[in-house]
């Protein structure tokens, strides 16, 4: 009886440096604020590694970075960005403006073009002109400023919902009216929460908890955030922009 394995085609084993940790992130820009959110579940395959692993980080009082994909690369990338921002602060005695941070992220990502950071980044915050901004990146640094973006495991579930609710795609305004160019903060927060509860329902890698960061422009009052349960302020400087974080539970199944 011939040895059946010798008839098989050649096989090779190698170490796969990447792995997928699930989760979803989302950012929406308002007229004078920006919301950046992410769920807190970290999984690998069908296992949950932890129910609380933050994916959204405050970089400065006007910039918040959400990272999603391979968690090890994500966490390390955030550390490196923070380090570069600190060097900038020492060199220039001021915080890096948001669009500069976006460009910095592109160069940092492209530097690893041939062994990339397996991370989908979304940078949100306030621009130099006081407007809300969202920048989204691919793993090798291609980026674009947008009004809203979802990334991660449930991107395909959430992004079309956002297209409809934020950009009013496929909706015609009533006669004599027009769709608002920017939505108010309470509406945006509701849309974010609904997006995550929907994603949690239908995607196994999304759930456990939701962390939403809100960045407000200089001089903007707290209108829209009154009475938001469990809100925590993270602002460090008194330059003007303010950062808040709101945590909510998501289904744990």
């Amino acid at each position, binding site marked *: 009886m011939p040895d059946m394995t010798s008839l098989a085609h050649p096989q090779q084993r190698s170490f796969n440096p990447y792995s997928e940790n699930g989760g979803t992130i989302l950012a929406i820009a308002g007229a004078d604020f920006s919301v950046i959110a992410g769920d807190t579940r970290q999984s690998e395959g069908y296992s949950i590694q932890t129910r609380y692993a933050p994916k959204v980080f405050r970089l400065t009082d006007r910039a918040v970075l959400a990272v999603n994909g391979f968690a090890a690369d994500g966490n390390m990338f955030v550390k490196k960005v923070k380090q570069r921002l600190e060097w900038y602060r020492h060199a220039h005695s001021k915080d890096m403006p948001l669009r500069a941070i976006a460009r910095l992220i592109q160069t940092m990502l492209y530097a690893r073009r041939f062994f990339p950071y397996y991370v989908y980044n979304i940078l949100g915050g306030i621009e130099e002109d006081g407007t809300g901004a969202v920048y989204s990146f691919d793993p090798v640094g291609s980026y674009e400023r947008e009004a809203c973006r979802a990334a991660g495991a*449930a991107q*395909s*579930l*959430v*992004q*079309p*919902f956002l*297209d*409809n*609710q934020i950009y009013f*795609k*496929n*909706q015609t305004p009533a006669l004599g009216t027009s769709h608002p160019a920017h939505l108010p903060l309470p509406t945006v927060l509701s849309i974010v929460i*609904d*997006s995550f509860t*929907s*994603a949690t*329902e*239908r995607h196994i890698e999304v759930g456990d908890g939701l962390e939403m960061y809100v960045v407000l422009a200089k001089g903007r009052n707290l209108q829209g955030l009154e009475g938001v349960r469990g809100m925590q302020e993270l602002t460090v400087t008194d330059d003007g922009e303010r950062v808040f974080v709101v945590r909510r539970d998501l289904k744990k199944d």
Partner: protein
Amino acid sequence: MSIMEYNGGSVIAMVGKDCVAIASDLRLGNQALSISSNFQKVFPVTDRIYVGLPGLGTDVTTLRERFRYRINMYTIKEEREIEPETFAHLVSSTLYEHRFGPYFIEPVIAGLSKTPSGGVKPLIAAADLIGCLNFAKDFVVAGTASTKLLGVAEGLWEPDLEPEDLFETISQTLLNSVDRDAFSGWGAVVHVITKDSIISRTLKGRMD
């Protein structure tokens, strides 16, 4: 290259108050090349049951004809129209017959069954390509834009929508989802089935 994605196309069905709706896009493509913006994927089975057949184009036609055969035989022999749940099981058994060489279709069924009191009970169901049935209470999706449809439907659907509202909800769900899918789109059609009528509408959407 997956066979299920070769021709493209998506279907969704939703439950409303004493009504159901089923909608699909109209695209038929050859991978990235779009061929037809008029390719019907949703077919009437009886006055009150519609079936959507997204997947490989040739199997869409073949399955539609096979179901027509079986439904005609059923109607003629039983001397009555088939009920939605029975039809769903007919779909399931037809697909399982080809368990080891399946039709590349994931059917979606929408219908109204008669209740003894003379009212109607909405029913929707979906099956995988080898006949596993899913009787959902809210909505069912299938096709290349299925994950998108699931996400938007989860966000927009609520129970007990009246026929006109159900039409708006299912239309927005379909349009916004197929706009994010390269292989679905190029036209859309929606059927809303109530006790007394079926209203079919073609939607105006992006033709890219």
